[in-house]
């Protein structure tokens, strides 16, 4: 299937994300939700603070492992303006905590458990994201 060739890295990368979630679940019994892991680092340290910090450090190290293995950094292009990034960051931070999850917690882990909450959350954030991009790219 030549037409699918460009998507193999995406599928393999996704499978690795699933493997990461599986490791965290089977070893520590926790869900790999990045917004929850990062958000809870901002609270007063408890007995879970250490593994959360270690996970985030590993996450940040991931692109460096890519650089080491492939000899070039992964592509990254941030087109949004600085004010847009600030507003977007505030919305992503507040929204993921209020909604108790992001693309990883609800998207990957929640859908894998067929959680009705996560299915609803994914449908809503996909919808508002698609509408936002439509407005930005085709209306403004």
């Amino acid at each position, binding site marked *: 299937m030549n037409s699918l060739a460009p998507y193999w*890295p995406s599928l393999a990368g996704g499978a690795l994300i699933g493997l990461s979630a599986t490791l965290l679940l089977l070893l520590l019994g926790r869900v*790999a939700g990045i917004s929850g892991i990062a958000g809870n680092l901002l609270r007063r340290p408890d007995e879970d603070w250490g593994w959360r910090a270690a996970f985030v450090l590993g996450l*940040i190290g991931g692109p460096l492992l890519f650089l080491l293995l492939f000899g070039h950094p992964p592509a990254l*292009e941030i087109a949004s303006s600085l004010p847009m990034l600030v507003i977007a960051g505030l919305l992503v*931070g*507040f929204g*993921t905590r209020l909604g108790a999850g992001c693309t990883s917690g609800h998207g990957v882990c929640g*859908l894998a458990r067929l959680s009705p909450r996560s299915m609803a959350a994914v449908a809503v954030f996909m919808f508002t994201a698609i509408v936002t*991009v439509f407005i930005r790219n085709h209306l403004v």
Partner: protein
Amino acid sequence: MRIIAALLSGLVFGFGLALSGMLNPVRVLGFLDLAGAWDPSLAFVLAGAVVVSAGGYLVSRRLARPALAPTFDIPASRRIDLRLIGGAALFGIGWGMAGFCPGPAIASLSLGYGKSVLFVAAMLVGMAAFRFMPAAPRARHA
């Protein structure tokens, strides 16, 4: 051991993101732009991640406890309320504005882009601001 396990899991996550191409906001926005030159990559990433993660979840249901912790701590709530829907809606708007969600944004910090740092700083402020939200009614009376 728990620290090493979490570090390894985070590393696999970050490497997977880098390999998948989803570290790049432009690719993510390409998926979200249904009316433009649609890039289906994110669907493949999500499919791969959900299938493998579902396998892991099924294995966990056959285990009495995780290897390095006393119990499984998995969200059990099934309640779909205004907080869930409102939070997801706000998150989606921010995601659509920048093309960054928390995982890729944090992972990209190691690549040295000022814009990543700015986004993550704003995201942390947003997360910290959530602590000023009153608790959910049911939790407050629990």
